[in-house]
């Protein structure tokens, strides 16, 4: 990319150096599972504003969390980058006009860009009772999706609701909430599940299309394999604890505080495909994803898991690795052989530990810490 090309980007993206921008493109190439040698091509695609694809974003049964995740990254320029590389022609949360004006801009974009626009669907599509549970401008969302999809160049279902049904489709599914791929059978629908989905997966998908003129490789459920090719459990930072048999048994216990594996608290990482542990959320650095904060993954991205299997129910591990044995949280001490000496020695040991703990506390002259009681056993 020439310095002149970069000047154009700088004017649009604000305070970003050429070096940072190129690094960003290399990271993106890596995230897409491509050689970093392709970074210049990605940079070129982002820099060329002639190729901005028109995007129509429809909202169905959703909470707008998918849109929020796109607008709230703290890293400079993700939102500007997205909004810069696409031409967002219709989006109810971000539209300047309302009512008829908004509907007119939708109709205009569809007319002018027939066959070329990208349709992004956020939210599930209720089909029960002829779709009356979601209406926009007097039309059912079901009819709107079918109408807009008919002329779309590409269709992306963002978030779990659009990708597989999500929350509204949870039992007893009162409105017949249905996913975009099910409603648009026979069409290719890229699905980016997650509740919320990671905005980088949308950005990477769009950048892939811009750079290479085609969709990234998808699995049988329409998920880009660069983002959903692996289980969370395969890349989890707590995996060494799982393999060593070190588990948090209860919220707030010693194992939980020490950052042990959350499997026994119901973690769904072993059955959920997503790249959360690798790219995390909000650009806030290490640990900004559910398991990183100490909460088990509840499988939001996976159909049949999130909002379906109860949160604290343990799942079967799809990819177990053998571990030698389950290591206890408090290392065991050698135990004397005879039961009588064992009882005596245990008592003496207990006294000794108790005494040294008291001495230690006196020495430090610190108040007792209720969160870290001294073990006296």
């Amino acid at each position, binding site marked *: 990319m020439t310095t002149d090309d970069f000047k154009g980007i700088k004017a649009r993206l604000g305070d970003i150096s050429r070096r940072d921008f190129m690094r960003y493109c290399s990271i993106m190439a890596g995230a897409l599972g491509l050689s970093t040698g392709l970074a210049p091509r990605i940079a070129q695609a982002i820099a060329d504003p002639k190729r901005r694809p028109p995007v129509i974003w429809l*909202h*169905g*049964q*959703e*909470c*707008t*969390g*998918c*849109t*929020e995740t796109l607008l709230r990254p703290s890293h400079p320029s993700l939102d500007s980058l997205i909004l810069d590389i696409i031409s967002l022609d219709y989006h*109810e*949360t*971000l*539209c*300047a*006009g*309302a*009512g008829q004006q*908004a509907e007119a801009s939708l109709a205009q974009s569809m007319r002018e860009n027939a066959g070329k626009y990208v349709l992004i669907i956020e939210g599930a599509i*209720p089909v029960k009772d002829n779709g009356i*549970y*979601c*209406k*926009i*401008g*007097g039309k059912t*969302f079901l009819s709107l999706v079918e109408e807009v999809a008919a002329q779309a160049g590409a269709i992306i279902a963002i978030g779990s609701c659009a990708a597989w049904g999500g*929350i*509204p489709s*949870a*039992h*007893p*599914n*009162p*409105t017949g*909430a249905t996913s975009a791929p099910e409603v648009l059978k026979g069409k290719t629908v890229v699905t980016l599940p997650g*509740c*919320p989905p990671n905005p980088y997966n949308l950005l990477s998908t769009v950048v892939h299309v811009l750079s290479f003129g085609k969709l990234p490789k998808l699995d049988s459920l329409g998920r880009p394999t660069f983002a959903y090719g692996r289980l969370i459990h395969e890349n989890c930072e707590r995996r060494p604890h799982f393999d060593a048999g070190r588990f948090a048994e209860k919220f707030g216990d010693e194992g939980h505080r020490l950052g042990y594996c959350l499997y026994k608290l119901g973690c769904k990482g072993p059955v959920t495909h997503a790249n959360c542990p690798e790219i995390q959320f909000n650009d806030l650095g290490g640990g900004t994803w559910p398991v990183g904060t100490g909460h088990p993954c*509840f499988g939001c991205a996976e159909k049949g898991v999130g*909002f379906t299997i*109860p*949160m*604290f129910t343990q799942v079967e591990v799809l990819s177990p690795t053998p571990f030698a044995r389950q290591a206890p949280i408090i290392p065991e001490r050698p135990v004397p052989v005879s039961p009588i000496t064992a009882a005596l020695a245990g008592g003496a040991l207990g006294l000794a530990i108790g005494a040294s703990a008291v001495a230690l506390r006196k020495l430090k002259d610190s108040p007792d810490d209720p969160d870290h009681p001294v073990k006296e056993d």
Partner: protein
Amino acid sequence: MAKRITIDPITRIEGHLRIDCEIEGGKVTNAWSSGQMWRGIELILQGRDPREAWIFAQRICGV
């Protein structure tokens, strides 16, 4: 004769809102607001483990 104006969708908000107004002599004489989307989260929550109610209730609105 009252004139009726309908604004649907109301934009720049979360959700699907529709406003209907009746106007007579340049003044709004009556108005209705209606949510145009329903998921039935009240029904979905019934019978679940209360400890996981938050993952549903939290997602009523993501803004």
